[in-house]
């Protein structure tokens, strides 16, 4: 009882000052300079690291055994948009964010806008590692600015075409290499009683990956203003293309990641999936009945003969502004995302696909996969990974942008409105969200 009484008293006292402090915190942050010094700490340090990678403990244990002076305590929770990002924002506001956090590429700008990230550009060890990473992943974490780094790339989601080899062969449908061929195949698949694919209406990331391939630039920023252009020509082209397939009822539109969606693949109702490398595992566990019948081909192209891939997903390990040990944190993040032992474990335990150039040659990624009829599918992705365009930028309020675009997409697949309309709406809502956050934006 005594402990409780005391802690309540402390709580009471502290709340009297809570209002003053929480607004003061922002001012403090404003006065510190953007680039943190990156000097090693003296003596042993303990770092905290929050992520949602399953079985990450096994990987961190390896580090902890080898580095008694830099111990890492790992915490796991729901995925980013499921609550961990919201927690990060709250913790940044309260000043108790962990040293390191798992942040997907598309969320990095949000955290940078909230001034939550340490710029690791002044860390020698980080700057020296740039060449190890695939160029476009480095662009995602540096925002294309020389000498600045806001996170260490962790994994990538280069996209390719998963397709039902058996069904395509049985029905004499050639494997599409262009989007035109893909649309033609869709008609044939429909005639054979299936759907060419399931259009992801509530996970906008897939569409973003398709637009990325087509050369879209949804966001831009010139240092003084953000620009939002979710209806640029490239995006419109992609939207109109899929709208056509939806209108002709050539694609199904089951909400992704549901048991129903798994069932569409398991029951051979959907024949292809344009997805990222980690999707290999999604099909394998969601559609066990189709084992051995799938294969992977490069993503269909807009122009025959091109070699361009999109990206879906991928994340970084970032060091939060509040960390007192940026050097040690960076050192750990680099080990986690470049060392062969860590990458091997991450791939084995959590199916992460490395963002480093050498990562593509991990032994596990050189093997044939039984579910895909023994095909060495990762070779396809390794090539795709080098074909992703480097100049795609995410906006600073992606949670809201996704939510709005997905609201519109959901309407479009049920016949109310079109994908382009949804994107137009999402764009104007994004602009007003930016404004309400007083983030400068050019219309």
């Amino acid at each position, binding site marked *: 009882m005594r402990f409780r009484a005391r802690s*309540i008293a402390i*709580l*009471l006292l502290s*709340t009297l000052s*809570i*209002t003053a402090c929480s*607004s003061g915190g*922002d*001012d403090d*942050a*404003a006065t510190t300079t953007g680039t943190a010094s990156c000097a090693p700490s003296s003596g042993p340090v303990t770092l905290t690291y929050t992520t949602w990678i399953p079985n990450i403990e096994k990987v961190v244990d390896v580090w902890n055994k080898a580095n008694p002076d830099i111990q890492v305590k790992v915490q796991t929770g729901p995925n980013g*948009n499921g609550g961990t*990002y*919201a927690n990060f*924002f709250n913790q940044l*506001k309260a000043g108790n964010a962990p040293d390191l956090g798992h942040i997907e590429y598309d969320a990095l700008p*949000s955290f*940078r*806008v*909230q*001034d939550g990230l340490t710029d690791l550009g002044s860390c020698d060890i980080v700057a020296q590692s740039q060449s190890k990473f695939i160029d476009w992943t480095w662009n995602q974490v540096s925002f294309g600015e020389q000498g600045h780094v806001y996170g260490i790339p962790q994994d990538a989601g280069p996209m390719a075409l998963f397709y039902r080899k058996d069904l395509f062969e049985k029905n004499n449908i050639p494997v599409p290499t262009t989007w035109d061929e893909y649309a033609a195949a869709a008609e044939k698949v429909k005639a054979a009683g299936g759907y060419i694919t399931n259009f992801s*209406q*509530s996970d906008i990331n897939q569409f973003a990956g398709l637009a990325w391939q087509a050369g879209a630039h949804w966001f831009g*920023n*010139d*240092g*003084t*203003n*953000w620009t939002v252009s979710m209806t640029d020509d490239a995006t419109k082209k992609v939207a109109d293309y899929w709208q056509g397939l939806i209108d002709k009822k050539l694609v199904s*539109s089951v*909400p992704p*990641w*549901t*048991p*129903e969606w798994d*069932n*569409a693949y398991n*029951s051979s109702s959907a024949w292809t999936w344009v997805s990222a490398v980690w999707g290999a595992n999604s099909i394998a566990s969601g559609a066990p009945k189709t084992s051995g019948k799938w294969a992977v081909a490069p993503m269909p192209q807009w122009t025959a003969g091109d070699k361009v891939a999109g990206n879906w997903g991928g994340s970084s390990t970032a060091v939060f502004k509040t960390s007192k040990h940026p050097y040690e944190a960076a050192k750990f993040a680099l080990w986690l995302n470049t060392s062969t032992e860590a990458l091997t474990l991450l791939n084995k335990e959590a199916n992460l696909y490395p963002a480093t150039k050498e990562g593509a040659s991990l032994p596990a990624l050189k093997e044939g996969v039984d579910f895909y009829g023994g095909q060495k599918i990762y070779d396809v992705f390794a090539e795709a990974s080098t074909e992703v365009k480097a100049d795609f930028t995410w906006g*600073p*309020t992606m*949670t*809201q942008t996704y*939510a*709005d675009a*997905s*609201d519109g997409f*959901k*309407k479009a*697949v*049920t016949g*109310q409105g079109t994908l382009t309309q949804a994107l137009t709406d999402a764009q104007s809502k994004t602009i007003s*969200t930016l404004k*309400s*956050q*007083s*983030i*400068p934006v050019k219309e």
Partner: protein
Amino acid sequence: MKRHASAIFFFVTPFGVLFALFYLIPIFYAVWQSLYTVKRTGTFGPATDVFGGFVQYREVFTNGPFWESIERVFLFGIVQVPVMLGLALFLALLLDSGLVKGKGFFRLAFFLPYAVPGVVAAIMWGYLYSPNLSPFTAVTASADLLSPSFVLWAMANVVTWVYIGYNMLIIYSALLAVPTEIYEAAKIDGAGVFRTAWSIKIPMVLPAIVLTTVFSIIGTLQLLAEPQVFRSFSSAVSSTYTPNLTVLSTSAVPNFHLAAAFSVVLALATFILSFAFLKFTQRKGVQ
């Protein structure tokens, strides 16, 4: 009763302190936050909180989706609350009518869904509604329960399923508290089962019904777990489907100030509706 001051202090203080800490202070903090707005410079400039007066509230009142979500839960409540409470009352009367054997079993069976957490109940029904997974393919094949025109009522069914038994028990217990002499008198007057139910039992349990109605209204306006889970089952549930979801998605942006303003308005709306309902029933002479 001044002489009991120390006893009163002893009884009220522990709860009072905790209530002040974990309800009042957070509420004041939220109201205070809702009066602020952020200012920043440059595309990645750090933000500062500045006093904005009613700026966020202007945003709230011009926010179309928020008011649509209020309308939506209003429609939900107008249909779901009477249906649920009507069924609860009906079942309670049946249990109390003497026509039913094995009362203990039914009471427990009906109450059991209340043991299922909202998140789990929604996941479970989500499966049951999915056209290709449901054991009830006869239903799900003829009408897609997860389509825009049905999903609100599919959710209403989840809420109804969880809470009928709970409401039934409250009403049933109130029925048990009715003195048996009243029934004796009615019997002598020759009133049948239905007469007794209609003109004696229902008026006697009206206070219990009023109570359950108020809690149902509050629950409806604060719908969160069900629509949140249904977002992954149905393409018809948007990120601003209910007011509470709007608060959640706004604070995830993160726009703490606007989220605070949303919740203040939502709490006020809840207060006005529950209060209006209580006043309305009082004027009717129920209590």
